């Protein structure tokens, strides 16, 4: 690829140590098997991209799901919600076009009014973009704690390839001082270019995608560039990491990009959730990380690289501390939400997702 190699000073590092003091996941309980989408639209089961995807209930959206994930993060952090100085929600399915999701979430968790609040948009990397901003806010000393959420209830056009995988779920992270963290963020690095692989115009209900353009120049190029540059500048390699988590629009892409960066199937296993919950868009890499933190040990290093269409990747090098073991027991684990499962058929799915015109 043609972009110039990143220089040594392009790592995003904070003046004071910053880390994750609390984290929380959320996955709604309904599951639509990919075979059920195939039954209605394709008539075959060969080559399904995942096993099943999570579908939100009629009373759920990015706001309600972010509230629950944030409450879980607060339980683990053990801080009072008024100590948060930012409530930032990254999503591409904010319930309102104009009116922030963040203010409702902040009010519900008890964080307002002395906060920054805003919604972030960058396709599937909106949440990790908010995490980088939170690193800056905490790392500069402007705030002690900041909340960054990545959450989506994505929709695909009925019958489109995306309908098999467009799932719902995500995660919330409270960033704070490194010495209070259950995992320290050693550094991050972001890699961004104008690449038209996937988009949705303002008035359109469903997104469009650049077909085969979504793979090579978009997903693989951005994730491998960001991951490679971060490790190169830090002087680390895949062997220094116990685990890695990548954005996961289907099962194959993260497996392949892991291989490109030198990671094994074992290293990505705990964070590879797309086969059982689908592609959770802005939530995908972030909930892969909550599942990984649920099983990691002190001293483990984790690489997380998100990907957002349009396009860009945020890469993070994360080092687990002793505080994780005690704190992860304080809220429901990612696996608890995945185990809570009510299978639905395509007709129920159509009703839950508001695809029926009632008037």
């Amino acid at each position, binding site marked *: 690829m043609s972009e110039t190699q990143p220089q040594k000073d392009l790592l995003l590092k904070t003046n004071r140590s910053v880390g994750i003091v609390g984290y929380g996941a959320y996955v709604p309980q309904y599951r639509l098997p990919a075979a059920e989408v195939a039954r209605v639209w394709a008539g075959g089961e060969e080559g399904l991209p995942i096993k099943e995807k999570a579908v939100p*209930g009629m009373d*759920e959206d990015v706001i*309600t799901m972010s509230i629950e994930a944030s409450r879980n993060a607060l339980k683990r952090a053990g801080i009072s919600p008024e100590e948060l100085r930012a409530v930032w929600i990254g999503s591409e399915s904010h*319930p309102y076009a104009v009116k922030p999701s963040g203010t*409702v979430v902040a*009010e519900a968790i008890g964080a307002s009014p002395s906060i920054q609040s805003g919604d972030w948009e960058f396709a599937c990397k909106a949440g990790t973009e908010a995490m980088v901003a939170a690193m800056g806010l905490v790392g500069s000393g402007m705030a002690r704690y900041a909340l960054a959420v990545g959450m989506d209830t994505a929709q695909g056009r009925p019958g489109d390839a995306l309908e098999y995988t467009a799932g719902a779920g995500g995660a919330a992270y409270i960033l704070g001082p490194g010495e209070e963290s259950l995992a320290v963020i050693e550094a991050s690095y972001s890699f961004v270019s104008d690449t038209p692989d996937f988009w949705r115009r303002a008035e359109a209900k469903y997104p469009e995608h650049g077909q085969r353009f979504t793979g090579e120049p978009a997903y693989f190029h951005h994730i491998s560039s960001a991951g490679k540059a971060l490790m190169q500048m830090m002087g680390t390699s895949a062997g220094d990491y116990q685990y890695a988590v990548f954005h996961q629009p289907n099962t194959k892409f993260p497996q392949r990009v892991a291989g490109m960066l030198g990671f094994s199937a074992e290293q990505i296993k705990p964070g590879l959730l797309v086969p059982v919950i689908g592609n959770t868009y802005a939530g995908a890499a972030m909930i892969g990380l909550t599942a990984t933190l649920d099983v990691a040990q002190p001293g483990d290093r984790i690489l997380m690289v998100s990907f957002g269409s349009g396009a860009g990747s945020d890469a993070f090098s994360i080092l687990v501390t002793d505080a994780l073991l005690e704190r992860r027991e304080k809220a429901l684990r990612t696996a608890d939400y995945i185990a809570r499962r009510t299978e639905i058929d395509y007709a129920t799915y159509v009703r839950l997702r508001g695809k029926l015109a009632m008037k």
Partner: protein
Amino acid sequence: MEIPRHWRIKKQRYALVGEVCPHCDAKIFPPRDVCPECGGEAKTPFAFTGRGEIYSYTVMNDAPAGYQESTPYTVALVKLQEGPMVTAQLTDLGSQPVEIGMPVEMVTRRIRSDGDERGMLVYGYKFRPVMQA
């Protein structure tokens, strides 16, 4: 349009914030600034844990305006751990049968849209079966 009312009661509705009586320690929900136990003034905010159990319930097949799209749904009287009784929708029941005495926990969900699809979204508490860790 009931925007002012939605706005006024958002704390109690989003997060089950009531009051605690400074005289007799009774927990009060919904907040009413006067203690129903001792009659004293009670304005101290108190956040309920959201844990409780089902006292009674009914299934709504014929819903009032704004709720028709989610029928049938279950409305329950929930006895909160701290004492007060609240009326709320149950959610996330899946195939689970509802039973008197069933332990439930509060979640914040979308209650309805105020008016048509152009109206504001109203969020508030519902209860679901307690999730097992």
